[in-house]
């Protein structure tokens, strides 16, 4: 039925998963940095962070990816003074992570705000350092508040990976199009792709439910 293209499509799905996974890791880091920026003591840093986040969230994802893909190499080359290659995969991960991070910083921000300030004060009074307070008091609790929001963003991220086919990555979407170009069966292959995405998103949702239960087990 798939005229020999199924292995290729599964290979594409594998690349999609890798992309999503690396983007998630980097995106979480970006998100934490973005949240920290919004809590900064300096107004200028707060302003710049918010401007940056609003810009990323306001532009179409495709546009952000294009800007990173074409602009990234140009910028890095300019900064380094000699040619540096930013591969499609890295551009894709970077772009997706920036988008994820921009939204995640909002999630983190409200999650940290949800941790009562009195706890930090108490910890401070006990002589804990700022880093200790962050690591041992704020982060574990904020994490629990942030999980549902991050779960939704992960689903968005998984679906956004489809856009990297437009910057030349051999992901699920790209492989689907390649298969269609020889078999001329658009419905069959796009529907198969849709089902694979459905499997990925549903599986994620199940995992998220488990994760959520784990994070909240002390409340049960």
């Amino acid at each position, binding site marked *: 039925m798939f005229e020999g293209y199924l292995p290729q499509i599964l290979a594409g799905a594998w690349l999609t998963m890798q992309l999503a996974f690396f983007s998630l890791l980097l995106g979480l880091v970006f998100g934490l940095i973005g949240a920290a920026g919004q809590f900064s003591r300096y107004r200028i840093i707060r302003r710049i962070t918010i401007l940056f986040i609003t*810009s990323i969230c306001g532009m*179409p*994802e*495709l*546009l952000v990816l294009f*800007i990173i893909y074409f602009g990234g190499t140009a910028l890095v080359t300019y900064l380094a003074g000699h040619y540096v290659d930013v591969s499609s995969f890295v551009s894709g991960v970077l772009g997706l992570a920036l988008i994820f991070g921009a939204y995640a910083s909002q999630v983190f921000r409200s999650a940290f705000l949800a941790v009562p300030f009195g706890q930090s004060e108490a910890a401070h009074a006990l002589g804990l350092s700022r880093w200790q307070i962050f690591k041992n008091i704020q982060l574990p609790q904020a994490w629990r508040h942030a999980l549902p929001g991050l779960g939704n963003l992960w689903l968005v991220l998984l679906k956004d990976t489809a856009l990297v*086919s437009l910057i030349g990555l051999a992901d699920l979407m790209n492989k689907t199009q390649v298969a269609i170009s020889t078999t001329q*069966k658009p*419905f069959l292959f*796009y529907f198969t792709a849709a089902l694979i995405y459905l499997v990925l998103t549903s599986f994620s949702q199940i995992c998220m439910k488990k994760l959520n239960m784990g994070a909240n087990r002390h409340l049960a």
Partner: protein
Amino acid sequence: MNDIIQHLPELISGLGVTLALMFSALVPAIILALLLTPAARSKHLWLSLPVDGFIFFMRGTPLLVQIFLIYYGSAQFEWVRASFLWVALREPFACATIALALNSCAYTIVLLKGAIQSVPREEITACYALGMSQFLTFWRITLPRAIRIILPAYSNEVVIILKSTSLANTITILDLMGVTNKIAGETYAVIPFLFIAGAIYLALNFVILSAFRSLEKRANVYLYQASQ
């Protein structure tokens, strides 16, 4: 700079197409969502299951796949091309609109469902006690309350749809993104034009969010009056 001025008319026409896409997707999406939300909340499985399945599919798959399925997928079948559906499906603009509208509809149902659930139960009970019918209660009390609750979240949905219109350029539509790609391909000045398009999208965002903020103020006007 010369390039930019020279291509300004094209950019403006692209902007027009983007806006047209956004509105022609949002209006049917809202209407359909209002019709389907009661079905999604129904106790009867034969009513709620199809709607749930629809939401599951639309939320679990990328919009790009949905657009391609509707545009290229539909054309694979002779019987589709022979049917009355083809009048709409042969036009790329209609295909993009359908995909965007169905997508937005699914998300709007979810928003509405959540909002309706958060309307205090006592208010509804009070209505019944006053002798209002189920429909009247829904129409006059629950729905207006729910709409007020979802306004902030709905503004995000509108922004998402605005951003999503950029995918229409993959099916030959010359929206803002399509025009930008075209100009970038002609002039090879890729990065400046990407930034111009980005600035236009951000400006549109600002307009949408401001409009919603004033709408929220007006919808919640009783809150301000009460506090005075």
